[in-house]
Structure formats: structure tokens, C-alpha cells
């Protein structure tokens, strides 16, 4: 991290002190990702200076690491001819994302300077909706015909002017770009020179449809361990290829969102957006939980006579609530991660899991009951309030034990039911489970107190 900030400091210094020519020379030796980070934090005037001084290669590199929206805004500040060269220097998928954010007049203007074939590609790519496999894919891939020999295939590979980042797979298509199969480079390299591609290719290529979700594409790549995934249209014509690094980003975002949802936060913008977004993504859950809390207060109110009679009961209330909900959240975590990993695909696995959780809940409950009984005993002895000692020990102990079991059931069954109904299991988030556990615990605790203490 220290080395990281040192690099950025150097870049910053160069931006503020170098002449245009020096700047171009200096910055082209740094990684565009670092230059992009610095570009974002310098002031407007310096940014314009950079755009003026740097050539389209360096600018292209920087834009690839900016958010598409920001990159589009930046591209607008450059004159159309240079902007066109910048777009040509960027990987087609990233360029298309930027083009998507240009207004239609700007788009027309800039694209008129871009190489005709690339302009067409960018137009097509930029039509895909965000979050689809089509949006994620790049058009750069190496295609060949199945009649080629292994030797010819390698020659095509060597002479391709625009090679993709990782030419690990070649795609076998016919003249209308119907996907006939794929061939992994490993296989090609190991093959005899004059063997036909048709004989060594994999005919049943795993592919996704252009309108499938990006998540589906990423999951497919992860499951089947693919570095490059072909994307086809409804007629099975090759449209492009998803690369694993882009898939990794999709999965990382997806897992971040899933993580946030487990805490009752509705989306990723809650972590990075402005205050309004942060509030909007949290408030719905907070409100729902608040209502549940109010309902809990109402339940406590029904038992107010118990509190009136023996105010000591309040002493242990927060403790029992906290401990029981911790147990519920634990069961939730285990069940939800099991569902995520696909462990419970079959009915008996689900049933076995629920039974196991309940068994574990019961065993933990016994320990928790004994322990909390002990604490009650100690607390009351310390306070010197021993009038209802045994009653309180029994009531709190049993209530804690039962609350534990109930919490385990809530934490296990709710995500299971959501899963069974094919709903998003993240609705069963930590706050919700603990709020529901709270309600049940309050009910149990006061019911026992009514029976035993009053």
C-alpha cells in the first residue's frame, strides 16, 4: 500500500510539473490503472491539461479504468477526431460501454471518425442492456473454419493483428458465423500439424444467449472452469466472447450485494452512493424492523402486570434477547451458505439439515439455559435481592433455553422455505431473523414469568 501511494504521488507530481511532452513520456511508463486513479483526484484544469498532452493510447488506457459514465464525460472534452482514435485504442467491450453513455449526436459525430467496421461493432455492442451477457462480452476473438488444419489455425493465430488478451480458445464458425465448436489452445498445440480442426474441436460448446444475464454467464464460466465463454444469438450465431476477468468483476459485485442484503441493505449504492441513496437503501428495512419492534413493545405491554409485580424481570430482558438472536443468526448463516453452495438440492438433504440444526439447537439450549441460570443466580446474589431467587433462575433459564431452540428453528426454516418457494433467500437477512427471534423470545420469557413468578 505504501508503494502504491508512492507511485500515485509520482504520477501526481508529473501532472503538475511536466511539460506536455514530458508528461506523455512519463505517464506512458506507468500502468493506466494507476494513472486513472490519479486522474480522478486532480482538479478540472489539470485533467484538461492531461487530455491535451497525452496521446490517444495513454488516454484510452486511462478511460478503460474509469466508470463508463465518467469516461464518456471525459471523452466529450476531447475533439472528435482524437476521441475516435481513443475509442479505437480501447478494448471493444469497454469502448461500447462508453459509447452507450454518449448522447446520440455526440455518438454520431465521434463514430463518424472511427474505422467503419469498428464503428458498426460499437453500435451493436452498445445496444445491449446492462446486466446481460451481451453487455459483458467483447467482440475480440479468433474464429476459424472447421476445414482448416491445425497448422493453418496456428498461422491464423500468429497473424491476427488484433489479438485478444488471452487467445486460449479459438472459435470454430461457418461462413454465417454459426458456432460449430470450440478448440482449446492446449489441444491445438499438442495436435499433429495436418489434422483437421473438425476432428479435434469440441462440438458441443457451452455457450450462453446474448440476452442471458451477466450473472448466468459468470456462473457458467466459474462452474465449467472456462476462460472464454462464447455468446450466441437465438439462431446460435457467434456474437462475442465473455472473458473471465469481466466475469470475476460481475461475481465480486454480486457477492458484495448478497453480503449487503444479509445485513438488510438493499443495494451496492448504499456503500458508495450519496447520502440520499445510502438512506433510501436502508430505510425500508429499518422501517419494517421498527414496526416489528413496536409490536414487541405492545407484547411487553400486555405483560406489564408482571413487570409491575416483579421489576427484577427487566434485569435479564436485554441479555436473553441478545443471546437468542445470536443463535438464530448463526443458524441463518449456516443454512444460507449451504443453500448458496447448492448443498440442499434434494428434499432429504433439506430435511436432514433442519433436523440436525434442531438437534444442535437443543444441545446448545441446554448449555445456554444452565449458563444463564448461573448468571441470574450471581446477579441476584450480588444485588442482595434473593426473595425470588429460585423462581427467577428457573424462569430465565428455561426461557433462554426455549428461546434458543425457537431461534434456531426461525433461522433455519425461514431461508429454507424461501428457497423452496424459489424466492431470493436474502429476504431472510440478519436483522429480520433477529427481530422475529426477539418477538418470540419476549413471548416465551413473559409467559414463563407469568407461570412461575407471579
Amino acid at each position: 500500500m505504501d508503494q502504491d501511494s508512492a507511485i500515485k504521488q509520482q504520477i501526481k507530481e508529473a501532472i503538475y510539473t511536466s511539460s506536455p511532452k514530458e508528461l506523455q513520456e512519463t505517464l506512458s511508463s506507468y500502468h493506466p490503472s494507476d494513472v486513472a486513479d490519479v486522474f480522478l483526484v486532480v482538479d478540472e484544469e489539470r485533467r484538461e491539461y492531461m487530455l491535451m498532452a497525452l496521446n490517444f493510447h495513454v488516454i484510452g488506457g486511462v478511460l478503460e479504468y474509469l466508470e463508463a459514465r465518467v469516461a464518456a464525460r471525459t471523452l466529450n472534452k476531447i475533439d472528435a477526431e482524437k476521441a475516435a482514435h481513443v475509442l479505437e485504442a480501447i478494448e471493444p467491450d469497454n469502448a461500447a460501454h462508453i459509447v452507450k453513455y454518449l448522447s446520440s449526436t455526440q455518438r454520431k459525430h465521434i463514430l463518424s471518425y472511427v474505422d467503419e467496421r469498428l464503428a458498426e461493432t460499437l453500435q451493436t455492442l452498445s445496444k445491449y442492456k446492462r446486466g446481460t451477457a451481451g453487455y459483458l462480452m467483447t467482440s475480440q476473438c479468433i474464429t476459424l473454419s472447421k476445414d482448416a488444419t491445425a497448422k493453418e489455425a496456428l498461422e491464423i493465430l500468429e497473424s491476427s493483428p488484433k489479438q485478444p488478451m488471452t487467445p486460449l480458445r479459438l472459435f470454430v464458425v461457418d461462413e454465417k458465423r454459426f458456432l460449430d465448436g470450440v478448440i482449446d489452445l492446449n489441444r491445438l498445440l499438442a495436435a499433429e500439424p495436418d489434422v483437421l480442426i473438425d476432428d479435434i474441436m469440441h462440438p458441443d460448446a457451452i455457450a450462453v444467449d446474448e440476452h442471458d444475464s451477466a450473472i448466468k454467464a459468470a456462473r457458467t464460466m466459474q462452474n465449467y472452469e472456462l476462460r472464454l465463454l462464447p455468446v450466441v444469438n437465438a439462431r446460435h450465431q457467434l456474437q462475442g466472447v465473455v472473458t473471465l476477468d469481466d466475469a470475476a468483476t460481475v461475481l465480486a459485485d454480486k457477492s458484495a450485494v448478497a453480503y449487503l442484503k444479509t445485513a438488510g441493505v438493499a443495494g451496492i449504492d448504499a456503500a458508495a452512493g450519496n447520502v440520499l441513496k445510502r438512506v433510501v437503501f436502508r430505510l425500508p428495512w429499518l422501517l419494517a424492523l421498527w414496526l416489528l419492534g413496536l409490536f414487541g413493545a405492545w407484547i411487553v405491554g400486555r405483560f406489564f402486570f408482571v413487570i409491575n409485580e416483579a421489576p427484577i424481570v427487566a434485569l435479564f430482558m436485554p441479555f436473553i434477547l441478545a443471546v437468542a438472536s445470536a443463535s438464530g443468526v448463526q443458524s441463518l448463516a449456516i443454512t444460507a451458505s449451504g443453500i448458496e453452495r447448492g448443498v440442499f438440492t434434494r428434499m432429504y438433504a433439506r430435511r436432514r439439515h433442519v433436523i440436525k440444526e434442531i438437534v444442535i439447537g437443543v444441545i446448545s439450549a441446554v448449555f445456554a439455559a444452565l449458563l444463564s441460570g448461573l448468571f441470574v443466580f450471581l446477579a441476584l446474589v450480588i444485588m442482595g435481592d434473593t426473595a425470588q431467587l429460585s423462581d427467577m433462575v428457573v424462569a430465565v433459564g428455561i426461557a433462554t433455553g426455549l428461546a434458543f431452540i425457537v431461534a434456531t428453528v426461525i433461522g433455519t426454516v425461514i431461508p429454507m422455505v424461501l428457497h423452496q418457494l424459489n424466492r431470493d433467500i436474502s429476504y431472510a437477512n440478519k436483522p429480520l431473523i433477529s427481530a422475529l427471534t426477539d418477538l418470540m423470545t419476549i413471548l416465551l420469557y413473559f409467559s414463563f414469568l407469568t407461570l412461575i413468578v407471579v
Partner: protein
Amino acid sequence: MAKTVLTKRNKPKEIKNLLKHEKRDKMLITKLKRYHPYDIATTWNRLTDNDIVRLRSFSDAKRFARVIAMLPPEEAHAYLSELNYDERVEILDMMPTHRAIETLRGMPESEAFETVAAFDGRMRDVLRRVLRLKRSQIGSAMHIRPVTVLKGETIKTARTMLGEAAAYADTTELVFVINQKRQLEGVIPLKTLLSAKPSDLVETVMDAKPQHVTLSDDVQDVVALMRHYDIFATAVVDENNKLLGVVTVETVLDIIHQNMHEDYAKGAEMPMHYNINNPSNKQVRVRLAKLLMLIGVNIALIAIMLIFASTYKAVLPVIVFLPLVGAMASHATNQTLATTVIMLESEAMLNIETKRSHIAGEVMSGFVNGVLLGGLTMLASIGLHEIFPAWQSDMAYAWVLGGAVFAGIMIATLLAMGIPLIINRLSGDPAASGSPVIATAATLIAIAIYFTLTAVLLIPIQ
């Protein structure tokens, strides 16, 4: 030209039926080849012992090894432990090496080392070193069969080497140039190798200052580095610059996947490598330890109630809202903790500006949520007082309750944001700041504020 690839198929059922009903051996071999090892792996737990025996004898050894590699580590271990060491090694040796390591790590330590002893040559030495590493070190996640070529050879030789290695190498996109001592001299990307002149010497086209990481580097740092610079593969060397393996974008993907489950586990105070298939008694032991710890932490809640005993005894109705005040603080803790952990884990937080803006954003949103919910609580206190016994529509009551809800949310926000930031500064793992502990702390402070307000505002008017 109708293709069936995209139509929905029940592949597990097909595979199961195939193994059960296809009696013609040759047909079975051909048909099994049509399924990806992943498809067979997802069918695994439906197969009988007999099915598995047939699967093994009618698939080629490498494909069968890949099936085992794709099983969850615990199932792979269960299967391998029934085989003798030679058979095990035969299968492990044909797996992609990072999966073999993962499988070995799923075994009890002594068994893993005994299995490794049955390997020969370089594999055995490297595997031994890898097994001694911690999970947090990148060496434990790397591939250990990089394609190498000696310095002084020609591009032509390098290509031949690549062709020969292609069948077993983990990744072919980088060819590593090494010297006699196996020290890393340079790297040739596949792209360069394919376009270079065959008669050139490898050192003339190689990248002589290759990106590399060290065996003991932290996994998360390497992942951050690779994602930041869009690196597809990088060499792993030991302290003597000896080439041991390679980390690829697949590794990164695996780690991202693991991180998610680990964050989740930590957020729920769960043990990290919790195995859902363990027998109940083992699960109870692991989880009970955590729960007992939580029970211990929560004694603080009894303590705070003891301290304020005289206060709530004087104004008993305040107890009715005690759970609400505590719960709102703990919910806000969960939310803020999650956003903070996500921010810290995304590389955006590497620069100080985003860190500051996150802090400001969180504090503001905590404030807004606090004011909104505190205000709502005041309204409820006044408007709904009749349904709560002995509660009064008095403004003082509303201020106490609303104030406590507001303060609870604010405190929760500050703690859940501050503690991970501090832990992160101390170069720990932000997700390790277990939410139950912070939630307890926030609840405790919220309760203290609630009762303090009670003492100040309500006791005088009683």
C-alpha cells in the same frame, strides 16, 4: 441448424440413467465423454457405489480426476480415503494442481502428508511446502505446474515445450524462462510466443522484469493487485527467486467466492471453515464455543441493567420499550458494518478521499435515519400511548423514547464504521470485527442513554 446446447436438460438424470442402463461398454465410453466433468460432479451424490465404479472404469483417467477435482473438498476426501495411496496419487496427480492442493487440505494433516509422500520428484517437494503454508498465503492457492523453458533455448523449443506441456499444464498463457537453478529469469506471454521468430532466443523476447509474487504473500493483497492491474496470470517464487507456481485469474475467482462465505461467517460469528456435513456433535462443539463467547459478551447487558436498576424501577413503563431501543441500535449496526466492510474490501478505499467521503456519507445517513425513526417513535409515543400500559402522551416521554432511538442509531453507525476502519488500519481483516460484539456494544450504549434520559426527564415529573 438446430442446436440443443441451450435447451434445458436434466443432466444429472441423464448421467444417472446412462450409468445404470447403458450396457454396451463402448457406447458408455463415448456417451460419457459428452458430459463436462462439472455435470458429472453435480450428479456425484446421486450415484451408487456401483455407478461410481463404472464411471471410473469407463472414463479416461484425466477426466475422472477432473470430476473428483470439482467435488466439494469433503466429498472428494471421502472418496479418496477409500482408495490406497497409489490410486489416490494417480488421481490427485491428474487434477488441476490447485484443486489437488485444496483436496489435500481437506484431509487430516497426517493423512495429507502421507499421501504427498507417495508423489515423486518436484511435485512432492512443492506439495510439502504448500501444505505447510497458511490458507492466507498465496502459495496455498497457486497452480504448481507452470510451463517452463530454460534460458538459452530458442522460441522454437519454447513452442515445442508448450505443445508437450499443454496436456498437463495448469495454464499455458505464460511461459516462464528459468535458469538451471529454476530461478525465474523472465516471462513470455503466449501472445508474444506465437508471434515471435522461431529462431530467436527466448531471452531476447522475454519480459525480463516479470510481475511476480512471493509464496508467503497475503492472498487478499495478491487478489487486489491482480484485479487492479488486470493481470491474468503471475509467477509465484520463493525467497530465493525459485519458480514454484503460478496464480491465475481462476484463482482470483475462487478467492472472491471464498471471501463471500468467509465474510458471511464472520458477520455471524461463525467458524471460518465450517463443514456443514460434519456430524452433529462436531458442529455443536464448534458453534457452542462461539455461542458461549457471545453469552459471555452479553453479560455486559445484565451489568448495565444492574447499574440502572433504580432508574427503571422508578419509571417502570420505560421497560416496555427497552427491546425496541436495543433492537434499532443493533439493526443499524448490522447495516453500517456491512457497507463499511464492502467499502474496505473494494479497492476504491485505497485512496484517502473515498475513505473520507464514505465516513461523511455514513455519518450523514446515520443521522438522517436516526432523525426519521426517532421522529416516528416520538409520534408513536404520543399518538399510540393508549395501547402501552402506563405510558403517557407527555412530551417528556416522547423525547426520552425518540431521543434514545435516535442516539442508538447514531452510536451504532459510529461504532460499526469506526471499529472496522481502526482494525483495517492495524492491518487486520475488517470483516473480523464480529457484528454480534459491536451490536452488543451499541445496544448497551443505547440502553444507557435511554435510562439516562429517563433519569433526567421522567423521574423529576413522576
